[in-house]
């Protein structure tokens, strides 16, 4: 397989503040994130040859027109991508194909979501079927946490350590939704949302947008980041069962989609020892338990059971062996669904370039972005690195 390793350069990134942005709409958010990314690249909207936009909910927008309209990209090809929480990264993925194939020169991949337009009470779940599979988003992921508590002896404190770490990181990031440190006791004693996940185990609802400008490395040499542009080492996508609650052979200890995507990503990027070779990772911590599963599924521990020890012993801290979510993660940064994948690319890029907005990972070489969406069904993994 030819792959896209070293064939796509990230030359500009932009991201709005994430939060309860009642007064801003999709137009505001896309204009802010995309123009910031273009300025970062030293380019203008006229330079954009094509766009991909990640949008989860129809109430945020339909069609690529959601991106076209605010930016006035009339006449240009723009595609809407939806793949649950991996929508933004899948938009980036498709944009990368276009660039790697040489079909377009300058492409913008972005994502946006206006979750607060439907109120603050948890992400809206419209059941697809009249009777099958009804559950809130926390409930779907809590089923895995519940099994890990039973089989692996995970505890509320193990989950709390993840929340404390991410709050500490988020407090340092000017664009994060939540910027207040918390204690283990805060997390353990918080009201239950879906057992065993409490309020501090769940990412809240946020609005926001992020955008990435990509081009071929040959063209990157003529942009603002000609010296420190970042290249895509791989992008992988894998989808497992849409209804894991009915899957007979599923043991609920981790998410197969992540293991599938990681395997492909590492193979393409030439990584054999993730613990040593991945400098840091932005992973999908929609729930604290999911971050723990991700640590195992992405191979940072040999046995997924030991993920809590990895966090407890400080290996996931910014100073640790593999900093996990130096931005504060979904938990603190926020999770406007369509935007998150692109927000992770934004963060990974800026970390690699030594210009992170908040906590800075020391001398990173390879950064990973990981999304996991639906009931743990869809996973996208992107690895980026410095181009030298």
């Amino acid at each position: 397989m030819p792959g896209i390793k070293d064939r796509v350069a990230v030359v500009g990134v932009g991201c709005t503040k994430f939060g309860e942005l009642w007064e801003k709409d999709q137009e505001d958010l896309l204009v802010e994130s995309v123009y910031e990314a273009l300025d970062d690249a030293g380019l203008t909207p006229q330079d954009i040859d094509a766009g991909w936009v990640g949008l989860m909910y129809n109430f945020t927008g339909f069609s690529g027109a959601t991106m076209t309209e605010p930016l006035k990209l009339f006449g240009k090809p723009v595609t809407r991508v939806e793949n649950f929480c991996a929508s933004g990264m899948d938009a980036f993925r498709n944009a990368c194909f276009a660039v790697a194939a040489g079909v377009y020169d300058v492409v913008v991949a972005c994502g946006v979501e206006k979750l607060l337009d439907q109120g603050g009470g948890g992400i809206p779940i419209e059941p697809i079927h009249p009777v099958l599979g009804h559950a809130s988003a926390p409930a779907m992921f809590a089923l895995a946490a519940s099994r890990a508590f039973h089989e692996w002896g995970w505890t509320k404190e193990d989950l709390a350590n993840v929340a404390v770490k991410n709050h500490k990181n988020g407090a340092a990031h000017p664009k994060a939704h939540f910027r207040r440190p918390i204690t283990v006791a805060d997390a353990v004693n918080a009201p239950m949302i879906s057992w065993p996940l409490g309020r501090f185990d769940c990412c809240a609802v946020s609005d926001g947008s992020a955008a990435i400008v990509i081009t071929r490395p040959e063209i990157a040499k003529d942009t603002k980041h000609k010296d420190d542009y970042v290249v895509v080492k791989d992008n992988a996508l894998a989808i497992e069962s849409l209804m894991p609650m009915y899957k007979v052979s599923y043991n609920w200890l981790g998410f197969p989609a992540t293991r599938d995507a990681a395997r492909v990503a590492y193979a393409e990027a030439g990584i054999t020892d993730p613990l040593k070779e991945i400098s840091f990772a932005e992973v999908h911590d929609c729930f604290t338990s999911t971050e723990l599963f991700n640590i195992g599924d992405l191979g940072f521990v040999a046995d997924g059971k030991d993920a809590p020890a990895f966090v407890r012993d400080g290996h996931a801290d910014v100073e640790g062996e593999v900093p996990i979510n130096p931005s504060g993660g979904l938990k603190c940064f926020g999770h406007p669904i369509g935007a998150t994948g692109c927000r992770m690319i934004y963060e990974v890029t800026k970390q690699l370039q030594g210009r992170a907005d908040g906590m800075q990972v020391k001398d990173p070489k390879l950064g990973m972005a990981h999304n996991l969406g639906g009931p743990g069904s869809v996973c996208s993994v992107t690895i980026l690195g410095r181009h030298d």
Partner: protein
Amino acid sequence: MVGIIACGAYVPLHRLGRQAMGQAWGIPAVPGERSVANADEDSLTMAVTASQECLVGQDPANIDAVYFATTTSPYTEKQCASIIAAALDLRKDVFTADFTDSLRSGTAAMRAARDAIESGSARSVLVVAADCRPAEPETMWEQLLGDGAGALLLSKDGGATIRAAKSVTSEMLGQWRRSGDRYVRAFEPKLETEYAYVRGVAQAGKAALQEAGVEPKDLAKAVISAGDPRSHQTAARALGVEMTQLQDTLFLMLGGLGTAQVPIMLTAVLEAAKEGDKILVVNHGDGADALVLEVAQPLTPPAGKRTAQQYMMTKRALPSYDAYVGFRQLMDRERFAPKTSPVTYWRDAKLELALYGGRCRKCGIVQYPPPRVCGECRAKDDMESVKLGRKGNVFTFTLDHLVGGSYLNVPVPRLVIDLEGGGRIFLEMTDGDPKDVQIGMPVELTFRCLHEGTAFHNYYWKCQPVRVAA
């Protein structure tokens, strides 16, 4: 001779002590408890469970008709017997009919069933009666009424044969509701008791006894419906029946069960009756129906069937009157009604109501919902239709506080269950304490109303902690 060859009862798990109701309103309380159907139960769901008990060990292929009797149909316009038949997975050419509006609808249905079988238009008929009668708050009605269901399978021969059936009609107002009335009404109980109830029961009962050539002293049991203990005894005396022959109306333990009262009382009798026992059944309401039965073959409960007695004795006390208000949804609040497709609900009826999954003929794995392409071995269109088991164990679970965008203080337990016989299913738990849920615990499936999407009753299955241990 047409006989009752099987019977079954269902009583909701929860009970409310009458003291609590008296205290809530500052009114006197009569002794005992009443049964309270859960918020996800109605006459139809209770009827399904009673019918399931009735049909343990019976071949459903022989059932040619289903008659559903109630004064509290969940639908004012739409038949319920057809939904019950679908949930019981009966044949599509079954004759379904609802008998409604009268407290004696259950025995009216029994008479019609007997006539159908005798005329040769049916081999077996399932008669099931259920009620959740609405009681006006701040009145004694709340204490007097109770919820439950009873089912009887009538067939060509055997069981408790029906020796005679007689009826009288009465146009007198007893207890009633007009369309649109929220609560049961009654005018003057003394009027109805003397002129309609006692006279009707006596007239119909004596006529039936005479036709059967049976004397009151020959009776092993007299199953006589009643609204209260005192009038029950008056009716017994008018019939010439002794107190010792009277079957308990269950008033003290459960309340007045409406159309289900006589079928549940009769089920309790038949589950213990001996060969040769003669039983008088009299049911009142807009007149009276009377039947004389003689047990030709005892209806010994088969293995796996829960008896009326077991349903009566397994119970959980509601903590307060407020809990009863919540269960019976007495406060006008919007019910959960997600926007889902009635087309999908109809198209998937077999997997929803009769709970069919698929077993792959290539790899043998049972899967639900049944797929076109096997999820385990990828064989295409090689699935055998199989009914899922109704018991299982919890593989994992959560306690979900978020329903329909609202935060609930009492969470909904959501369980991933490995079913007996194969297949894995994801269901809400009901009639159990969320705190008691554990991985590995045994559960059984129960037919309930899930929600009101598109303004109709979306019936499906939930699970509950095992009600009666095997």
